[in-house]
């Protein structure tokens, strides 16, 4: 397992760890007559730092939801320790300061969104006026202010997801656990959730969210924890996880044909309209640029090819390496 240094910069004070798991384990019984055990989580050591957004990524069945359920007390772990906001897992005190959005939330369909938020507020011991205020604020925040008094059985999937988000924020939690928060949302909704998560961080809150949509993790997270088969594969800032693998550069050139002399140094050449896209190793950059100019062409731009999380992900999982080059997508986003 690759572990990158997660510490703060030298001149910052060490950040508080709001969630710590040590050797967390869980396995499920399988089979009806002959029972075996399928491990869902194996020796999970995870830390979440205050004020960060940690992405929890993995394929379906990798143990993401199991982790969340254990943290929320829906499943009992087979072993290990968990500390949340300084309190042990079993204590209810930390729940006053945390919020949770389950995957595919089901909220009572006979209630309206306002009523549901009011109910949740009561469970936190909020006063009536406070509950009313919070409900109004939150519904406005998630864009449901006009649907506040419609029974939730008439909500679309996206509306339910947003209502679910609202209920996770009722108590203005310091620590948010979001299980697939973008699922079921259209682009507008996804944007809303993204903004919301970023706003939480700006307000000093901590967010742990799981997703299998890697681009979301890329754009939002400070750090990413990658889960495979119930084990933590790697965790660290995105830049560090991916930086090591930046070895190629992409050149966009014009006025030169693919077979021009000197261009064989490029690993790949691809025509894009009347331009040429070349994939070049770092060390060969100079040679190729010279070759292009010698052939009378022009270099329009140079871009380092960054491996995406997806590439990393598929490589680590043993699938075919799907670099930007192999996929044919440009570093500038075309293709």
């Amino acid at each position, binding site marked *: 397992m690759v572990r990158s240094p997660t510490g703060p910069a030298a001149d910052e004070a060490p950040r508080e760890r709001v969630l710590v798991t040590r050797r967390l384990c869980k396995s499920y019984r399988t089979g009806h007559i002959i029972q075996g055990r399928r491990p869902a989580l194996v020796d999970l050591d995870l830390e979440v730092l205050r004020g960060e957004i940690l992405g929890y990524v993995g394929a379906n069945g990798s143990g993401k939801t199991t982790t969340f359920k254990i943290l929320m*007390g829906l499943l009992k772990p087979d072993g290990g320790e968990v500390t949340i906001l300084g309190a042990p897992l079993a204590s209810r005190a930390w729940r006053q300061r945390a919020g949770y*959005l389950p995957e595919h*939330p089901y*909220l009572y369909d006979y209630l309206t969104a306002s009523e549901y938020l009011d109910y949740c507020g*009561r469970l*936190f*011991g909020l006063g009536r006026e406070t509950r009313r205020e919070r409900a109004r604020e939150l519904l406005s925040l998630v864009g449901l202010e006009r649907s506040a008094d419609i029974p939730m059985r008439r909500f679309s999937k996206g509306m339910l997801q947003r209502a679910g988000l609202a209920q996770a924020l009722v108590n203005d939690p310091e620590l948010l*656990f979001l299980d697939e928060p973008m699922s079921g949302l259209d682009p507008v909704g996804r944007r809303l959730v993204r903004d919301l998560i970023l706003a939480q961080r700006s307000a000093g809150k901590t967010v742990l969210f799981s997703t299998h949509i890697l681009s979301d993790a890329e754009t939002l997270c400070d750090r990413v924890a990658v889960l495979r088969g119930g084990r933590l594969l790697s965790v660290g800032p995105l830049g560090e996880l991916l930086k090591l693998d930046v070895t190629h550069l992409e050149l966009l050139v014009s006025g030169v044909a693919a077979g021009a002399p000197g261009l064989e140094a490029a690993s790949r050449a691809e025509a894009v309209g009347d331009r040429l896209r070349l994939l070049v190793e770092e060390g060969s950059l100079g040679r190729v640029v010279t070759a292009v100019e010698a052939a009378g062409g022009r270099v329009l731009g140079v871009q380092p090819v960054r491996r995406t999380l997806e590439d990393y992900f598929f490589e680590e999982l043993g699938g075919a390496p799907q670099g930007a080059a192999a996929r044919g997508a440009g570093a500038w986003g075309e293709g």
Partner: protein
Amino acid sequence: MGGRLSRTLAVAANTFRETVRERVLYNLVFFAILLTVAGLLLGQLSVRQDEKILKDIGLAAMDLFGTLIAVFIGTGLVSKEIERRSLYPLLAKPLSRGEFYLGKFAGLAFTLLVNLGAMLLGLLLTLLLTGRRPDPVLLGAVFPILLGLLLTVAFAMLFSSLTSATLAAVLTVSVVVVGRFADVIRGMRDVAPGVPPALVNALFAIVPNFSNFDFKSKVAYGDAVPAAVLGWTMLYAAAWIVVVLGLGLAAFRARDFK
């Protein structure tokens, strides 16, 4: 303690709201129709028979409708929440499993109280409208019916914490039916002398004796149920309810929600 109570009450209030919105209380409409029709059709019999039959029908309907509600809503209380996973966001809050479980029980108990109360009112009204004075003695039968229903709910919740809603309903109905036959079990030695008394006693002990809650015939004839009997009945019911609720709570607490 205040926090615990207020959370439990919040769950109870929401449960009551759920039963109302799921139109459970519409059974009262059928009850009203039943009483009206019965009141009209019984005219052919003598005056004194009218009253007794009306009371019999009213009390039997309270018992039967109440039992149906207790079984079918009761089994849904826990299993529906688990199957639909509406439980998840709630348990992540400072709401313990115990508060949730007991809150659900309290909510349905209140629903049954309201339901029975409305039926009693309806019966008294029907009696009044057919020229009889309403008899407070009827309360002596209605209160034990409520106790029996609460025990039924406790069983329904126990079974629904252990298994699916459908199977839980079947098991609960079985317990209620066998419980009504408890006196037959107890008297088994008269009918089948070969059965070992230890077995009979064991069988009688593990099944609640629902006939303890049945004072319908007595009350229909205008006899009051003695306060001492009501007191002991209440104690009996309370003891059973505590045991069954406790077992159900233990099962609910131990459960993994996959």
